[in-house]
């Protein structure tokens, strides 16, 4: 039985000077599952994730971590439970991979961030899990976009959170790295972690998510298993006639393809 770690209730948010609104009645992010958050550009995926992470306070509504209100908790205790990886990962300074990962131990350390053996073990484990252990001395400026994402993921994993909130973590990754990445998320979920991942890739979301939330213009239009959410009707409703749904040959999960006629590509 999966239990909810983060609960979002009656969320309403908007930005000053913009007519755009996010309205969400209820969403749980639970243990031992991968929740895919999908939708077209501007549908509110990242805003929803930022609200769940406590990085953004909603105008209205409640976010619960366990049974406590997120906004009443201090950042360190939130970070011990929630690992948040934003979309933009830049640094003014050229830190090494190991330095970045060590920073993930922040919520477990005192003011000056000195690490003890248990912290170093967590850092080593995170580097190994993300396969960044061989690049731990390399600096950010020497990493590709995908390696950079993995370095920051390792940093978030070093926090040893109960739930991971990831915003477009595979956007800069090659396809085989994307597969590895989502397999890693699945194995973390199998070990009990709750994972919410924002992605534009509907096929990866379908294959590797236990549940999907489909957002459109700040509203949840479908929630459930990939088979329940990625239907022909929903696709047509959101993306129009340019999308074709099929099935994955191995898993029989929905697959999304562009609808192109043979004569169009001649």
């Amino acid at each position, binding site marked *: 039985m999966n239990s909810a770690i983060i609960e979002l209730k009656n969320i309403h948010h908007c930005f000053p000077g913009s007519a755009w609104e996010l309205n969400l009645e209820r969403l749980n992010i639970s243990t031992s599952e991968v929740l895919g958050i999908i939708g077209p550009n501007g549908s509110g995926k990242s805003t929803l994730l930022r609200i769940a992470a406590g990085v953004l306070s909603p105008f209205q509504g409640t976010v619960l971590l366990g049974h406590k209100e997120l906004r009443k908790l201090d950042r360190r*205790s939130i970070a011990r439970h929630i690992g948040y990886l934003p979309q933009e990962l830049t640094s003014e*300074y050229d*830190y090494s991979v190991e330095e970045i990962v060590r920073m993930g131990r922040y919520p477990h350390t005192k*003011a000056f*961030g000195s690490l003890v053996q248990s912290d170093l073990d967590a850092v080593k484990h995170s580097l190994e899990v993300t396969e960044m252990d061989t690049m731990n001395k390399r600096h950010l400026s020497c990493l590709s976009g995908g390696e950079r994402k993995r370095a920051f993921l390792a940093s978030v994993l070093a926090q040893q959170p109960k739930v991971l909130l990831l915003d477009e973590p595979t956007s800069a990754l090659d396809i085989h790295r994307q597969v590895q990445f989502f397999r890693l998320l699945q194995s973390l979920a199998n070990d009990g972690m709750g994972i919410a991942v924002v992605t534009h890739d509907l096929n990866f979301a379908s294959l590797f998510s236990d549940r999907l939330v489909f957002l459109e213009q700040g509203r949840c239009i479908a929630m459930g298993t990939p088979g329940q959410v990625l239907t022909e009707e929903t696709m047509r409703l959101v993306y129009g006639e340019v999308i074709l749904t099929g099935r994955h040959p191995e898993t029989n999960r929905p697959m999304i393809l562009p609808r192109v006629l043979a004569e169009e590509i001649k």
Partner: protein
Amino acid sequence: MKGKRITLYVLLFISVAIITPWIGPESIHLSNVLGFIEGNHNPEGDIFWFQRIPRVLLALLAGGALSVVGASFQVLFRNPLVEPFTLGISGGSSLGAFLAISMPSLWIVWGPLSSVQIFAVIGAALALYLIFALARRPQGMSVYTLLLAGITISIICSGIILLITYLANPQALVVFQRWMMGGIDIVGYGEFVPLCPLIFPGLGLLIFHANDLNHIALGDEVALGHGVAVKTVQRNVFIGGGLATAAVVSLVGPIAFVGLIIPHVVRRLSGFDQRIVLPCSFFLGGTALAVFDSIARTVMAPTELPVGIITAIVGGPLFIYLLVSRKWR
């Protein structure tokens, strides 16, 4: 490893602290200096203990403080060109000092502090408050608004200074111009000791947040995700840096470049960990200003040059070198 790196800077700092008091237009003999302590009063001992030592101490403290503030502000504002004076604090301080210099009715003395120092601190404090009030938002403080507000306050202060310059008498202008060049030519300990309660807590606050600044360098959202109370750190670093800058500027005037360049030099030599960068910036900044001041008081002896001229002449080319070199960040 970290300890070793800091130790090298400390050794350099101590070496300069020991050597530079002996450098100056008048040669000083050790026997006279030691004799002065034993009660044998002599001009050399007097120069050493009441001119050179306070001067070197002030250079070490002011250079160190400006460098730490510069290093912290560059991370806080994610801008490698920021220095302690970018935020308009020195603008407020200069305006206060100029008011004190140009208006005889404002000449007051409070303990060891002159009216120039008092008004420089008041001007800096007002600028600090104004910038902070302008940048505050219900959801926290915006560092970009803070930077823009600082630059705007600086421009406003410059405008008022120009107005007073136009109206003030020429004698006051000469004194003010000399103040603006920066100088460490103090006599005795009375002037800078009362400002230590501003400088040390300010620097302490910055050093306390050194580790937090590492996370802020990765972006506010990553820092929040790691558990850093970003808004609190931004506020504390701004106030701590502002206090230290205000106190230093009131003593030595706006000495350029030290707070801008030293952090970059430290990062090139010792990496990007702010827990190393901040203390090392203090030691290297203090060392550099003490050396620059030694040059200032000897290069055209018996005439002493304002140290601000030396820092700008040496610092400018060094900054250009850092600017064009590959790993200048």
